[in-house]
Protein backbone atom coordinates (compact mmCIF):
# COMPACT_ATOMS: atom_id res chain seq x y z
CA UNK A 1 0.00 0.00 0.00
CA UNK A 2 1.46 3.44 -0.92
CA UNK A 3 2.24 5.92 1.83
CA UNK A 4 -0.33 8.63 2.50
CA UNK A 5 0.59 12.16 3.45
CA UNK A 6 -1.91 14.55 4.98
CA UNK A 7 -1.97 18.32 5.46
CA UNK A 8 -4.45 20.68 7.05
CA UNK A 9 -6.45 22.67 4.51
CA UNK A 10 -6.31 26.47 4.59
CA UNK A 11 -10.01 26.57 3.75
CA UNK A 12 -11.23 25.78 7.23
CA UNK A 13 -11.85 27.45 10.57
CA UNK A 14 -10.81 25.61 13.71
CA UNK A 15 -10.53 25.94 17.45
CA UNK A 16 -9.70 23.50 20.21
CA UNK A 17 -12.40 23.13 22.83
CA UNK A 18 -11.74 20.74 25.71
CA UNK A 19 -9.00 18.92 23.84
CA UNK A 20 -11.23 18.36 20.80
CA UNK A 21 -11.06 20.30 17.56
CA UNK A 22 -14.14 22.13 16.31
CA UNK A 23 -13.66 22.56 12.57
CA UNK A 24 -15.82 24.32 10.00
CA UNK A 25 -15.38 23.66 6.34
CA UNK A 26 -15.40 26.80 4.19
CA UNK A 27 -16.73 24.72 1.31
CA UNK A 28 -20.16 24.20 2.85
CA UNK A 29 -20.03 25.78 6.35
CA UNK A 30 -20.44 22.29 7.79
CA UNK A 31 -19.24 21.97 11.37
CA UNK A 32 -17.27 18.97 12.64
CA UNK A 33 -16.22 17.96 16.11
CA UNK A 34 -13.12 15.76 16.07
CA UNK A 35 -12.69 13.40 19.01
CA UNK A 36 -9.34 13.20 20.79
CA UNK A 37 -7.94 10.70 18.31
CA UNK A 38 -9.13 12.68 15.29
CA UNK A 39 -7.72 15.83 16.87
CA UNK A 40 -4.36 14.13 17.34
CA UNK A 41 -4.22 13.10 13.68
CA UNK A 42 -5.40 16.52 12.50
CA UNK A 43 -2.74 18.29 14.57
CA UNK A 44 -0.04 15.97 13.23
CA UNK A 45 -1.08 16.58 9.61
CA UNK A 46 1.97 18.58 8.57
CA UNK A 47 2.17 17.32 4.99
CA UNK A 48 5.62 15.84 5.61
CA UNK A 49 4.91 12.98 8.01
CA UNK A 50 3.23 9.93 6.52
CA UNK A 51 -0.02 8.72 7.97
CA UNK A 52 1.66 5.46 8.87
CA UNK A 53 4.29 7.32 10.89
CA UNK A 54 1.60 9.42 12.58
CA UNK A 55 -0.23 6.25 13.57
CA UNK A 56 2.97 4.56 14.76
CA UNK A 57 4.44 7.54 16.60
CA UNK A 58 1.38 9.33 17.89
CA UNK A 59 -1.63 7.02 17.97
CA UNK A 60 -0.11 3.68 18.97
CA UNK A 61 2.06 5.27 21.65
CA UNK A 62 -0.92 6.98 23.30
CA UNK A 63 -3.74 4.47 22.77
CA UNK A 64 -3.94 0.75 23.35
CA UNK A 65 -4.83 -0.18 19.75
CA UNK A 66 -3.67 -2.78 17.27
CA UNK A 67 -1.45 -1.07 14.69
CA UNK A 68 -3.06 -2.36 11.49
CA UNK A 69 -6.55 -1.64 12.79
CA UNK A 70 -5.51 1.89 13.85
CA UNK A 71 -4.02 2.57 10.42
CA UNK A 72 -7.17 1.34 8.69
CA UNK A 73 -9.37 3.57 10.88
CA UNK A 74 -7.02 6.54 10.42
CA UNK A 75 -7.12 6.14 6.65
CA UNK A 76 -10.92 6.06 6.63
CA UNK A 77 -10.93 9.17 8.83
CA UNK A 78 -8.57 11.18 6.63
CA UNK A 79 -10.43 10.20 3.46
CA UNK A 80 -13.69 11.40 4.98
CA UNK A 81 -12.08 14.68 6.11
CA UNK A 82 -10.62 15.12 2.63
CA UNK A 83 -14.08 14.78 1.10
CA UNK A 84 -15.18 17.76 3.18
CA UNK A 85 -12.10 19.80 2.26
CA UNK A 86 -10.69 19.68 5.81
CA UNK A 87 -7.57 17.64 5.05
CA UNK A 88 -5.47 17.38 1.91
CA UNK A 89 -4.38 13.82 1.11
CA UNK A 90 -1.63 12.75 -1.28
CA UNK A 91 0.67 9.82 -1.92
CA UNK A 92 3.55 12.34 -1.99
CA UNK A 93 4.67 14.72 0.76
CA UNK A 94 2.62 17.88 0.52
CA UNK A 95 4.74 21.00 0.11
CA UNK A 96 3.95 24.32 1.78
CA UNK A 97 2.50 22.26 4.55
CA UNK A 98 1.37 25.20 6.65
CA UNK A 99 -1.94 25.54 4.89
CA UNK A 100 -3.32 27.65 7.68
CA UNK A 101 -1.33 30.58 6.38
CA UNK A 102 -3.19 32.42 3.65
CA UNK A 103 -1.38 33.39 0.44
CA UNK A 104 0.92 36.39 0.69
CA UNK A 105 -0.40 38.54 -2.14
CA UNK A 106 -2.88 41.30 -1.34
CA UNK A 107 -5.33 43.29 -3.37
Amino acid sequence: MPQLYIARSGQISARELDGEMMIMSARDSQLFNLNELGTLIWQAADGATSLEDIVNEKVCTQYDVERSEALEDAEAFVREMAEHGILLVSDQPIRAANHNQPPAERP
Partner: protein
Amino acid sequence: MSSLLEEMDQRALERGIPLAVQFDLTYRCNERCAHCYLDHHDRGEMTTPEVMDVLDQLAEAGTFFLTFSGGEVQMRTDFFRVLEHARSLLFCVKVKTNALMIGKAEAERLRELAVESVQVSIYSHRPEVHDGITNLPGSLERSLAGIRLLREQGVKTIIVNVLMRQNLQDYPGVIALAKELGALFTVDPTVTPRMDGDRSILSLGISQADLREVFRTPELVGNVNEFCAPPKPADGETLNELPCSAGHTLCYISPYGDVHPCVQFPLAAGNLRARKFLDIWRHSPQMTAVRSIRARDLTVCSTCAHLGSCTRCPGLAYMEGSMRGPSRLDCAKSFARTGIPFADKLPKEQVELRP
Protein backbone atom coordinates in the same frame (compact mmCIF):
# COMPACT_ATOMS: atom_id res chain seq x y z
CA MET B 1 -28.97 26.14 15.29
CA SER B 2 -27.50 22.73 14.44
CA SER B 3 -27.20 20.27 17.30
CA LEU B 4 -23.40 20.33 17.06
CA LEU B 5 -23.41 24.12 17.24
CA GLU B 6 -25.73 23.96 20.25
CA GLU B 7 -23.37 21.49 21.89
CA MET B 8 -20.41 23.72 21.11
CA ASP B 9 -22.24 26.72 22.56
CA GLN B 10 -23.16 24.79 25.71
CA ARG B 11 -19.58 23.65 26.24
CA ALA B 12 -18.33 27.21 25.73
CA LEU B 13 -20.94 28.47 28.22
CA GLU B 14 -19.88 25.92 30.85
CA ARG B 15 -16.24 26.87 30.43
CA GLY B 16 -16.71 30.64 30.17
CA ILE B 17 -15.38 30.87 26.61
CA PRO B 18 -16.26 33.88 24.43
CA LEU B 19 -17.16 31.71 21.46
CA ALA B 20 -18.42 34.57 19.27
CA VAL B 21 -17.00 38.08 19.14
CA GLN B 22 -17.99 41.08 17.05
CA PHE B 23 -15.01 43.35 16.52
CA ASP B 24 -15.83 46.76 15.06
CA LEU B 25 -12.58 47.80 13.43
CA THR B 26 -13.67 51.39 12.80
CA TYR B 27 -16.72 53.60 13.19
CA ARG B 28 -15.70 55.61 10.13
CA CYS B 29 -18.00 55.09 7.19
CA ASN B 30 -18.44 56.25 3.61
CA GLU B 31 -22.22 56.22 3.99
CA ARG B 32 -24.40 58.23 6.36
CA CYS B 33 -27.37 55.94 6.89
CA ALA B 34 -30.35 57.67 8.41
CA HIS B 35 -30.88 55.00 11.06
CA CYS B 36 -27.23 54.38 12.02
CA TYR B 37 -26.59 54.17 15.75
CA LEU B 38 -22.92 55.18 15.56
CA ASP B 39 -20.83 58.33 15.76
CA HIS B 40 -18.55 58.16 12.70
CA HIS B 41 -15.67 60.26 14.00
CA ASP B 42 -12.37 58.52 14.68
CA ARG B 43 -11.80 58.98 18.39
CA GLY B 44 -8.57 57.01 18.52
CA GLU B 45 -8.88 53.65 16.78
CA MET B 46 -6.54 50.86 17.77
CA THR B 47 -3.44 50.66 15.60
CA THR B 48 -2.66 47.66 13.40
CA PRO B 49 -0.32 46.06 15.99
CA GLU B 50 -2.93 46.63 18.70
CA VAL B 51 -5.62 44.97 16.59
CA MET B 52 -3.32 42.03 15.78
CA ASP B 53 -2.57 41.59 19.46
CA VAL B 54 -6.28 41.58 20.30
CA LEU B 55 -6.81 38.85 17.69
CA ASP B 56 -4.03 36.77 19.26
CA GLN B 57 -5.70 37.21 22.64
CA LEU B 58 -9.11 36.18 21.28
CA ALA B 59 -7.65 33.02 19.72
CA GLU B 60 -6.06 32.17 23.05
CA ALA B 61 -9.38 32.79 24.80
CA GLY B 62 -11.05 30.22 22.50
CA THR B 63 -13.08 32.51 20.25
CA PHE B 64 -14.21 30.69 17.11
CA PHE B 65 -16.72 32.98 15.38
CA LEU B 66 -15.33 36.43 14.64
CA THR B 67 -17.37 39.14 12.94
CA PHE B 68 -15.57 42.16 11.54
CA SER B 69 -17.87 45.13 11.28
CA GLY B 70 -17.92 48.91 11.61
CA GLY B 71 -18.48 51.59 10.34
CA GLU B 72 -17.20 50.36 7.03
CA VAL B 73 -14.36 47.90 7.58
CA GLN B 74 -12.59 48.88 4.39
CA MET B 75 -12.17 52.45 5.62
CA ARG B 76 -9.19 50.91 7.41
CA THR B 77 -6.37 50.59 4.91
CA ASP B 78 -5.02 47.63 6.92
CA PHE B 79 -8.26 45.68 6.70
CA PHE B 80 -6.90 42.85 4.54
CA ARG B 81 -3.78 42.53 6.70
CA VAL B 82 -6.05 42.23 9.74
CA LEU B 83 -8.23 39.70 7.94
CA GLU B 84 -5.19 37.66 6.88
CA HIS B 85 -3.99 37.53 10.46
CA ALA B 86 -7.44 36.51 11.69
CA ARG B 87 -7.59 33.68 9.16
CA SER B 88 -4.08 32.54 10.00
CA LEU B 89 -5.43 32.13 13.55
CA LEU B 90 -8.24 29.98 12.07
CA PHE B 91 -11.17 32.14 13.16
CA CYS B 92 -14.45 31.56 11.35
CA VAL B 93 -14.69 35.09 9.97
CA LYS B 94 -17.83 36.92 8.92
CA VAL B 95 -17.55 40.39 7.41
CA LYS B 96 -20.19 43.11 7.48
CA THR B 97 -19.63 45.73 4.79
CA ASN B 98 -21.58 48.03 2.49
CA ALA B 99 -19.54 46.51 -0.40
CA LEU B 100 -18.89 49.94 -1.92
CA MET B 101 -15.14 49.30 -1.97
CA ILE B 102 -15.24 45.70 -3.12
CA GLY B 103 -13.62 45.39 -6.52
CA LYS B 104 -12.46 42.25 -8.32
CA ALA B 105 -9.20 42.01 -6.34
CA GLU B 106 -10.97 42.42 -2.99
CA ALA B 107 -13.60 39.81 -3.89
CA GLU B 108 -10.87 37.37 -4.93
CA ARG B 109 -9.00 37.98 -1.70
CA LEU B 110 -12.12 37.37 0.40
CA ARG B 111 -12.57 34.06 -1.42
CA GLU B 112 -8.92 33.09 -1.00
CA LEU B 113 -9.07 33.88 2.69
CA ALA B 114 -12.16 31.66 3.00
CA VAL B 115 -14.33 34.07 4.95
CA GLU B 116 -17.48 32.32 6.09
CA SER B 117 -19.80 35.00 4.74
CA VAL B 118 -20.09 38.63 3.78
CA GLN B 119 -23.15 40.57 4.91
CA VAL B 120 -24.35 43.64 3.02
CA SER B 121 -27.29 45.90 3.89
CA ILE B 122 -29.57 46.68 0.97
CA TYR B 123 -32.56 48.85 1.83
CA SER B 124 -34.44 48.85 -1.45
CA HIS B 125 -34.25 47.79 -5.08
CA ARG B 126 -35.02 51.40 -5.99
CA PRO B 127 -31.95 53.68 -6.07
CA GLU B 128 -33.90 56.71 -4.87
CA VAL B 129 -34.98 54.85 -1.72
CA HIS B 130 -31.72 53.02 -0.94
CA ASP B 131 -29.55 56.06 -1.70
CA GLY B 132 -31.98 58.24 0.26
CA ILE B 133 -31.34 56.11 3.35
CA THR B 134 -27.55 55.86 2.91
CA ASN B 135 -27.36 59.54 1.94
CA LEU B 136 -24.90 58.55 -0.78
CA PRO B 137 -25.98 58.94 -4.41
CA GLY B 138 -25.09 55.87 -6.48
CA SER B 139 -24.61 53.65 -3.43
CA LEU B 140 -27.17 51.00 -4.46
CA GLU B 141 -25.51 50.53 -7.82
CA ARG B 142 -22.06 50.29 -6.24
CA SER B 143 -23.15 47.91 -3.46
CA LEU B 144 -24.83 45.62 -5.98
CA ALA B 145 -21.71 45.67 -8.15
CA GLY B 146 -19.71 44.58 -5.10
CA ILE B 147 -22.16 41.79 -4.35
CA ARG B 148 -21.97 40.56 -7.96
CA LEU B 149 -18.18 40.35 -7.71
CA LEU B 150 -18.44 38.43 -4.46
CA ARG B 151 -20.91 35.99 -5.95
CA GLU B 152 -18.73 35.51 -9.04
CA GLN B 153 -16.03 34.35 -6.63
CA GLY B 154 -18.51 32.04 -4.88
CA VAL B 155 -18.36 34.00 -1.61
CA LYS B 156 -21.44 33.37 0.51
CA THR B 157 -23.22 36.74 0.61
CA ILE B 158 -26.15 37.71 2.80
CA ILE B 159 -28.33 40.69 1.99
CA VAL B 160 -29.83 42.27 5.09
CA ASN B 161 -32.94 44.35 4.62
CA VAL B 162 -33.54 46.69 7.56
CA LEU B 163 -37.19 47.67 7.46
CA MET B 164 -38.14 51.28 8.08
CA ARG B 165 -41.11 53.46 7.20
CA GLN B 166 -39.20 54.71 4.17
CA ASN B 167 -38.61 51.26 2.60
CA LEU B 168 -41.20 48.95 4.11
CA GLN B 169 -42.95 48.34 0.80
CA ASP B 170 -39.75 47.41 -1.01
CA TYR B 171 -38.80 44.10 0.57
CA PRO B 172 -40.26 42.03 -2.33
CA GLY B 173 -37.92 43.91 -4.66
CA VAL B 174 -34.94 43.22 -2.39
CA ILE B 175 -35.87 39.52 -2.15
CA ALA B 176 -35.97 39.40 -5.97
CA LEU B 177 -32.57 41.10 -6.13
CA ALA B 178 -31.12 38.56 -3.69
CA LYS B 179 -32.46 35.70 -5.80
CA GLU B 180 -31.05 37.20 -8.98
CA LEU B 181 -27.65 37.65 -7.34
CA GLY B 182 -27.59 34.23 -5.69
CA ALA B 183 -27.39 35.87 -2.27
CA LEU B 184 -29.18 34.88 0.91
CA PHE B 185 -31.79 37.27 2.30
CA THR B 186 -32.63 38.21 5.83
CA VAL B 187 -34.84 40.90 7.25
CA ASP B 188 -34.41 43.06 10.34
CA PRO B 189 -37.47 45.04 11.43
CA THR B 190 -35.73 46.87 14.27
CA VAL B 191 -34.20 50.31 14.42
CA THR B 192 -32.26 50.68 17.66
CA PRO B 193 -31.29 53.78 19.65
CA ARG B 194 -27.96 55.45 19.03
CA MET B 195 -25.09 54.25 21.21
CA ASP B 196 -25.08 57.63 22.97
CA GLY B 197 -28.65 56.98 24.13
CA ASP B 198 -30.33 59.30 21.60
CA ARG B 199 -33.66 57.67 20.74
CA SER B 200 -34.75 60.10 18.02
CA ILE B 201 -33.90 57.69 15.19
CA LEU B 202 -36.54 55.27 16.49
CA SER B 203 -39.03 57.47 14.64
CA LEU B 204 -37.72 55.86 11.42
CA GLY B 205 -38.93 52.46 12.56
CA ILE B 206 -42.11 50.83 11.30
CA SER B 207 -45.39 51.14 13.20
CA GLN B 208 -46.82 48.47 15.47
CA ALA B 209 -49.50 47.69 12.88
CA ASP B 210 -46.88 47.25 10.17
CA LEU B 211 -44.75 45.11 12.46
CA ARG B 212 -47.76 42.86 12.99
CA GLU B 213 -48.11 42.52 9.22
CA VAL B 214 -44.39 41.80 8.78
CA PHE B 215 -44.64 39.00 11.36
CA ARG B 216 -47.48 37.46 9.36
CA THR B 217 -45.61 37.42 6.06
CA PRO B 218 -44.21 33.94 5.31
CA GLU B 219 -41.55 35.36 2.96
CA LEU B 220 -40.10 37.25 5.91
CA VAL B 221 -40.60 34.96 8.92
CA GLY B 222 -41.08 31.48 7.49
CA ASN B 223 -43.75 29.48 9.28
CA VAL B 224 -46.16 32.15 10.55
CA ASN B 225 -48.02 29.78 12.89
CA GLU B 226 -44.81 28.80 14.60
CA PHE B 227 -43.41 32.32 14.61
CA CYS B 228 -46.56 33.84 16.08
CA ALA B 229 -47.45 30.98 18.41
CA PRO B 230 -48.58 32.03 21.90
CA PRO B 231 -45.83 31.67 24.51
CA LYS B 232 -45.76 28.57 26.69
CA PRO B 233 -46.34 29.25 30.39
CA ALA B 234 -43.09 29.85 32.26
CA ASP B 235 -41.99 27.11 34.65
CA GLY B 236 -39.06 26.79 37.06
CA GLU B 237 -36.71 25.94 34.23
CA THR B 238 -37.72 29.05 32.29
CA LEU B 239 -37.08 31.21 35.36
CA ASN B 240 -33.56 29.83 35.66
CA GLU B 241 -32.66 30.53 32.03
CA LEU B 242 -30.11 33.09 30.92
CA PRO B 243 -31.57 36.22 29.34
CA CYS B 244 -29.25 35.87 26.30
CA SER B 245 -25.69 34.97 25.30
CA ALA B 246 -24.28 38.48 25.83
CA GLY B 247 -21.37 38.29 28.26
CA HIS B 248 -21.68 34.49 28.45
CA THR B 249 -20.45 33.24 25.07
CA LEU B 250 -20.80 36.51 23.18
CA CYS B 251 -18.68 39.64 23.36
CA TYR B 252 -18.10 42.92 21.54
CA ILE B 253 -14.96 45.00 21.00
CA SER B 254 -15.06 48.61 19.82
CA PRO B 255 -12.46 50.26 17.54
CA TYR B 256 -11.08 51.97 20.66
CA GLY B 257 -10.56 48.73 22.56
CA ASP B 258 -13.62 48.91 24.78
CA VAL B 259 -15.04 45.51 25.67
CA HIS B 260 -18.83 45.21 25.94
CA PRO B 261 -21.05 42.16 26.51
CA CYS B 262 -22.56 42.65 23.02
CA VAL B 263 -22.64 45.15 20.16
CA GLN B 264 -26.04 46.30 21.34
CA PHE B 265 -25.07 46.48 25.02
CA PRO B 266 -22.93 49.61 25.59
CA LEU B 267 -21.73 48.60 29.05
CA ALA B 268 -17.96 49.16 29.00
CA ALA B 269 -16.33 46.38 31.01
CA GLY B 270 -12.74 47.46 30.41
CA ASN B 271 -10.33 48.67 27.77
CA LEU B 272 -7.81 46.52 25.93
CA ARG B 273 -5.22 49.28 25.99
CA ALA B 274 -5.14 48.97 29.76
CA ARG B 275 -5.96 45.31 30.44
CA LYS B 276 -5.74 41.92 28.78
CA PHE B 277 -8.90 40.59 27.17
CA LEU B 278 -9.21 37.53 29.40
CA ASP B 279 -8.78 39.65 32.51
CA ILE B 280 -11.71 41.85 31.44
CA TRP B 281 -13.78 38.90 30.23
CA ARG B 282 -13.31 36.85 33.37
CA HIS B 283 -13.00 39.41 36.12
CA SER B 284 -14.65 42.73 35.31
CA PRO B 285 -17.50 43.61 37.69
CA GLN B 286 -19.65 44.55 34.69
CA MET B 287 -19.35 41.12 33.04
CA THR B 288 -19.90 39.46 36.42
CA ALA B 289 -23.07 41.50 36.91
CA VAL B 290 -24.40 40.58 33.45
CA ARG B 291 -23.65 36.89 34.07
CA SER B 292 -25.42 36.86 37.40
CA ILE B 293 -28.82 37.60 35.87
CA ARG B 294 -31.35 34.83 35.40
CA ALA B 295 -34.87 35.20 34.02
CA ARG B 296 -36.26 35.14 37.57
CA ASP B 297 -34.25 38.30 38.37
CA LEU B 298 -35.89 40.42 35.68
CA THR B 299 -37.90 43.08 37.45
CA VAL B 300 -40.91 43.17 35.13
CA CYS B 301 -40.30 40.42 32.59
CA SER B 302 -40.19 37.59 35.16
CA THR B 303 -43.94 37.98 35.57
CA CYS B 304 -44.66 38.45 31.86
CA ALA B 305 -46.54 35.88 29.78
CA HIS B 306 -43.87 36.22 27.09
CA LEU B 307 -40.94 35.30 29.33
CA GLY B 308 -40.16 31.99 27.63
CA SER B 309 -40.34 33.23 24.05
CA CYS B 310 -39.51 36.95 24.11
CA THR B 311 -36.50 38.20 22.16
CA ARG B 312 -35.79 40.63 25.02
CA CYS B 313 -32.43 42.30 24.54
CA PRO B 314 -30.69 43.13 27.83
CA GLY B 315 -28.60 45.73 26.00
CA LEU B 316 -31.64 47.63 24.82
CA ALA B 317 -33.10 47.27 28.31
CA TYR B 318 -29.85 48.72 29.69
CA MET B 319 -30.17 51.67 27.33
CA GLU B 320 -33.71 52.16 28.63
CA GLY B 321 -32.46 52.33 32.19
CA SER B 322 -31.84 48.83 33.60
CA MET B 323 -30.29 45.63 32.28
CA ARG B 324 -32.80 43.79 34.48
CA GLY B 325 -35.77 45.75 33.14
CA PRO B 326 -37.86 45.32 30.00
CA SER B 327 -36.83 46.38 26.52
CA ARG B 328 -39.87 48.11 25.10
CA LEU B 329 -38.81 47.39 21.53
CA ASP B 330 -38.99 43.69 22.32
CA CYS B 331 -42.22 44.05 24.32
CA ALA B 332 -43.68 45.54 21.15
CA LYS B 333 -42.37 42.65 19.06
CA SER B 334 -43.83 40.03 21.39
CA PHE B 335 -47.18 41.81 21.28
CA ALA B 336 -47.04 42.12 17.49
CA ARG B 337 -46.28 38.40 17.15
CA THR B 338 -48.94 37.05 19.47
CA GLY B 339 -51.43 39.79 20.28
CA ILE B 340 -51.01 38.86 23.93
CA PRO B 341 -50.45 41.81 26.29
CA PHE B 342 -47.15 41.99 28.09
CA ALA B 343 -46.40 42.61 31.74
CA ASP B 344 -45.71 46.33 31.49
CA LYS B 345 -49.41 46.71 30.63
CA LEU B 346 -48.82 49.79 28.54
CA PRO B 347 -51.92 50.87 26.67
CA LYS B 348 -51.78 49.65 23.09
CA GLU B 349 -51.34 53.12 21.61
CA GLN B 350 -48.14 53.54 23.64
CA VAL B 351 -46.66 50.32 22.36
CA GLU B 352 -45.22 51.95 19.31
CA LEU B 353 -41.67 51.36 18.19
CA ARG B 354 -41.43 55.12 17.88
CA PRO B 355 -40.27 57.16 20.91
